[in-house]
C-alpha cells in the first residue's frame, strides 16, 4: 500500500479540477452520518468495540466498486503529519485527525469520495466536487450508502430516521455544504448582514475548517443545520438556491466595488501582490488573506496570464503541514514563516505586477464621489 503522501495528487494537479461557478464556489460536499445497530457510538464505545466496528465496516467500504484502488488505513498507522495534510486538503475533519486505534479512513483514487470510520459516528461518508455540484455529490454518496445499507446493519428508526451520536445530525444524517470565496462581500462590509440572513434560513456559516474556525482567506462554509423533518433532496435544493443567490451577491458586490471604489480594490490587490511576491517572512494567516485578494485580482482580470489554480495551489502549499512536509527536520513557526516567504517569492517570480483594468466608460474615480 502506498503511503498517503504518494497517494494524494499534487496540489498543482488537484487545483486544476474545475467545476461550475468555481470562480466563487471552491467546492461542494455532501456528507452522510450512519451508525451500526449493535455497537455503541464511537465516543462512548470501549476500544474493543471500536475495533470490532472498524473491522465490520472497513471491508464493506473497501469492497465498494467506487473504492477500487482506494487508499485505506487505520488512523493509528498515520503520522500526525499525514493527518494534518489530510485536514489541510479538507479530506478529513480535525476531529478525525485526533483519532487513533479503532478509527479508519478509506479514500478513493480521485479524492472525490472519502469515508471516515469511527469519527463521531461509525460512518461519516462524504462526496466532494469542485465548484457548485451539490446534486451530483448527493447522487454519488446516495449510491454508496445504498450499497452499504445492504452489507451493514444500520441503526434506524421509522420515526427518527438514521440514529446519530449527536441529536443535531439525526434523521437524514445529511450535511450539505459548499466552500465559498467571498472577498467582495467582506471588502464591502456586507458579509455580516449576509451571514445573518443565511442563518435566518436555518443554514450555518462557518470558517475554512468547519465548526468554530475563522474565515481565513475570505473563505466561508455554508451548510444545512437541520437534518430531521426535511428530505435529503429538499435540503440539497434549498442550499442550491441560497448558494446561487450568494454567488449573485458576491458578483454584484464586485461590480459595485469596481464602480464606486476602484482605487480601494486596486490598492488591496496591488499591496497583496507586493507583499506575497517580496516578503521574507510571512505567517500562514496573512498568506491566506493576501492570496484571497490575489484570487480576486485574477477574477477581475488584473493578473492576465495567471491561472486561478496557481493561487489555489499556493493556498494549500503554504499551510503548515504541507510546508513542513517538504523538509526532513521539524521547523518552528518562525522558521516556517521564512520558508513560506521564500516559496512564495520563488513561485511568484514570473508573475508580473497587477495591471489596472481598463476603466469602463462613465465610471468615476474615488476622488469624485458624486454618483
Amino acid at each position, binding site marked *: 500500500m502506498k503511503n498517503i503522501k504518494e497517494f494524494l495528487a499534487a496540489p498543482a494537479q488537484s487545483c486544476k479540477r474545475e467545476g461550475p461557478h468555481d470562480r466563487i464556489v471552491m467546492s461542494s460536499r455532501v456528507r452522510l452520518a450512519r451508525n451500526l445497530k449493535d455497537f*455503541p457510538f464511537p465516543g462512548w464505545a470501549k476500544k474493543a468495540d471500536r475495533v470490532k466496528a472498524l473491522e465490520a465496516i472497513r471491508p464493506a467500504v473497501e469492497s465498494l466498486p467506487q473504492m477500487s484502488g482506494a487508499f485505506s488505513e487505520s488512523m493509528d498507522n498515520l503520522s500526525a503529519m499525514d493527518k494534518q495534510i489530510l485536514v489541510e486538503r479538507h479530506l478529513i475533519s480535525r476531529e478525525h485527525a485526533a483519532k487513533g486505534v479503532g478509527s479508519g479512513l478509506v479514500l478513493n483514487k480521485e479524492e472525490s469520495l472519502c469515508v471516515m470510520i469511527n469519527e463521531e459516528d461509525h460512518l461519516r461518508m462524504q462526496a466532494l466536487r469542485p465548484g457548485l455540484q451539490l446534486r451530483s455529490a448527493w447522487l454519488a454518496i446516495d449510491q454508496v450508502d445504498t450499497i452499504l445499507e445492504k452489507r451493514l446493519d444500520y441503526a434506524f428508526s421509522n420515526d427518527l430516521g438514521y440514529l446519530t451520536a449527536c441529536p443535531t445530525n439525526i434523521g437524514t444524517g445529511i450535511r450539505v455544504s459548499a466552500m465559498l470565496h467571498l472577498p467582495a462581500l467582506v471588502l464591502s462590509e456586507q458579509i455580516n448582514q449576509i451571514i445573518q440572513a443565511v442563518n435566518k434560513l436555518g443554514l450555518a456559516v462557518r470558517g475554512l475548517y468547519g465548526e468554530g474556525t475563522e474565515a481565513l482567506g475570505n473563505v466561508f462554509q455554508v451548510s444545512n443545520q437541520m437534518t430531521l423533518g426535511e428530505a435529503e433532496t429538499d435540503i440539497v435544493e434549498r442550499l442550491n438556491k441560497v448558494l446561487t443567490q450568494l454567488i449573485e451577491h458576491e458578483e454584484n458586490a464586485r461590480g459595485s466595488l469596481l464602480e464606486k471604489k476602484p482605487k480601494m480594490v486596486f490598492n488591496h490587490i496591488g499591496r497583496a501582490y507586493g507583499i506575497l511576491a517580496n516578503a521574507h517572512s510571512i505567517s500562514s494567516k496573512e498568506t491566506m488573506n493576501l492570496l484571497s485578494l490575489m484570487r480576486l485580482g485574477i477574477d477581475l482580470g488584473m493578473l492576465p496570464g495567471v491561472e486561478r489554480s496557481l493561487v489555489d495551489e499556493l493556498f494549500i502549499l503554504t499551510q503548515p503541514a504541507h510546508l513542513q512536509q517538504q523538509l526532513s527536520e521539524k521547523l518552528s513557526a518562525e522558521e516556517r514563516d521564512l520558508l513560506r516567504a521564500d516559496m512564495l517569492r520563488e513561485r511568484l517570480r514570473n508573475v508580473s505586477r497587477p495591471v489596472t483594468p481598463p476603466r469602463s466608460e462613465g465610471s468615476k474615480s474615488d476622488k469624485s464621489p458624486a454618483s
Partner: protein
Amino acid sequence: MLCDICKQNVATVHLTQMVEGKTKKVDLCEACSKEKGVDDPTGFSLADLLLGLGAAQEMAQAAAGSDLKCPACGFTQADFKKTGRLGCADCYTTFGEGLEGLLKSMHKGTKHVGKVPQPLQQHKDYQEKLNRLQKQLEKAIGDEDFEQAALLRDEIKQTREKFDNLTTG
C-alpha cells in the same frame, strides 16, 4: 433581570418576536446584544438567537431529571449533559421523552422524512399493505360480502408468502 446569554450583566435590551405563532422573549445585556448583532435590525433575527438559546435550555432540561441509564450501553443522563452526545442507538428509546423538546427546538420536524434503508422500506410497505387488506377483510365480513372476503383472504395469503420469500430468499 440578568442577560439570557452571559447570565452576568444586567439586561438592558428586551426583545419580543412572534415565532411560528408563539411569542418569544429575550433579555440581553449591552455587550451580548452587540455580539449577536441585535443592534443591526436589518440582519437580526430573534429566531436564531432563540434557536441557539432554546437548544441550550432544552439540552439542560433533557439532561436533568431522573437518573435514567440506558440498559443497552450504560450511558446516563449525566453523561449526556457532559458530552451532548448519546451512547448508542437504544439511548434514543431510553431518553426519548427528554429528547423530544430538544429535537423540536433544533430541527424542522420530529418525524423523519427522506431516505429509508431498502430492507426496512420493503418491510414498511409490506406492513402497510397487510394492515390495509386486513381492514378491508373485516369490513367485507361485516357487510356479509363473503365473495369479496374470500378474495381478500387469498390476497393476504399471497402477500405474506411473497414477503416471506423475499426475506428468506
